[in-house]
C-alpha cells in the first residue's frame, strides 16, 4: 500500500501537512493536516509497503503494543481511502 503521488510533506514549526501539487490539486482541495504520528506513517507510505512492514516500523519508533499500532494504521488507511488518496 502507498499514498498516491502528488503530495509534498511539509513541516512548519511543530505542524505537519501534506500539500497536493500539480494535478493532485484537482482531487484534494486544501491540505492533509497530520500530527507527528500521522506524518511518520505518511512518510512510510510514500513507498509501497505491506501493512506488516508499517506496523513493525511503528513498533520500532513508538512505545506501543502491536494492537495499538495496527489500530492506528487501520484508521489512517481508512481516512486516506475515504478521501481517495490511497493508492493500490
Amino acid at each position, binding site marked *: 500500500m502507498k499514498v498516491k503521488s502528488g503530495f509534498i510533506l511539509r513541516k512548519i514549526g511543530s505542524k505537519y501537512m501534506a500539500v497536493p501539487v500539480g494535478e493532485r490539486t484537482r482531487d484534494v482541495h486544501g*491540505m492533509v493536516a497530520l*500530527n507527528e504520528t500521522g506524518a511518520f506513517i505518511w512518510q512510510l507510505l510514500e513507498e509501497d509497503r505491506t501493512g506488516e512492514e508499517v506496523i513493525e516500523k511503528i513498533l520500532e519508533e513508538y512505545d506501543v503494543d502491536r494492537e495499538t499500532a495496527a489500530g492506528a494504521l487501520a484508521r489512517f488507511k481508512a481516512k486516506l481511502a475515504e478521501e481517495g488518496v490511497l493508492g493500490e
Partner: protein
Amino acid sequence: MSDCDFLAGTLDHFTEELKEIARRDAIPVNGIFELTARCNFDCRMCYVHLTPDEIRKQGRELTNAEWLAIAEKARERGMLELTLTGGEIFVRRDFRELYTELKQMGFLINLMSNGYLVDERVMEWLAEDPPYAMRFTLYGASNETYRAVTGIPDGFDRVSHAIDLVKEADIPFYLMGLIIKENNADLLKMYEFAREKKVYFRHSIALVPPVRGAKQDAAAHRVDFTKFPKEAFKDLPKAERIYRHHPRQLLDCAHYRRGFVVTWNGKMQLCSFLSDPAEDVRELGFDRAWEKLLSDLEQLPEPEKCGTCRYEGFCRRCPGVLAAESGSTGRVTDSYCRQAEFVYGIYHNE
C-alpha cells in the same frame, strides 16, 4: 487531533494553531508575490498601477528564475500560503510557466486578477492545474460602469464570461468589489449579479492612496461615508467598540511576524501599502531580508494621540494605510480621524 485530517485551510483548529505558532516563532507562512505593477486596466483609483515607462525608471520586474529562487528560500523558512497578485498577473507573458513551477513546490496558491484576460485558452491549462483559490475584483455591473472606472469598454461582459469559465472548472472562487464614486450606483446590482452567478461577493470602500510612484488620485474618487446622513444608520445595533484594543497597532495586522509581500522589483515589505521598511531580497537574500524586516518593524512609530483618543475603538489604524495617507505610521491625517469620529457617532447616536 487525529493522525490525519483533510482540511481546506481556513477557519479550522489546525490552521489557527499554525497561525499562532507562526506569529510566536516569526515563521513567514503567508507570502504575497506582487509579480507586476503593469495592468491591462487603467483604474482611476489604483494604488499600484505603473506604466512600463514608470517601471523602467524604478527598476525592472523580477524574472521567473528570481521568483522561483525566492519561493524556494521562503518555503525553507515556512511559507505555506502564497498569493500571486499585481497589477494584473495575466499580463506577464511568462505567468503560466512561473505558476506551473510554483504549483509543484507545496504551497496553497491564491490568484488575484481582474479576470479580463481569463479566457478559454487560459482555462485549458488552469483547470488542469487549479489554484487553491481565485479572486476577481469586480468594478461594476455594466460595460458602461467598467469603462468609467477602468477605461475598458467591454470589461463587464468579458469578466462575466470569465466567471462562468472559472465556475465550470470548479475552481474555488470569489469576487471582491472596490467601490468608488463612479460605480457606487451599481453596488446593489453587483450583489444581484453575484447572486445570479452563485459566487460569494463582498465590497469595500476603503481606498488607499497611491504608493511607490503610482499617480492615481484616490482621494478624488473615494466615497466619503462621513457625508452620509447619520439618520441612515439609526437602526444599527449599538456597540462599545468595533475593533479590538491592541497595545500596539501592529498586533492587529494579519501579516505581523508571519507574512510579507515581495514587490514587483524585489523589495520585501510587511504589506503592499507600507513601503518603508522595505528590504531588497535580491541583495540580502530571503533569510536576511526577513530578519531585517522583523527588526525594522519593531521600530515603527505609532501616532501618540491614538493612545488617548475617544474614538480608538472605532478606528482601524492599519499601519500601511496610515503610512500611505500621511507618509508615516506615526502620523494620522485629520480626515482619517474624522472617519473614526463619524463611525463612533453612528454607534453612539451622536
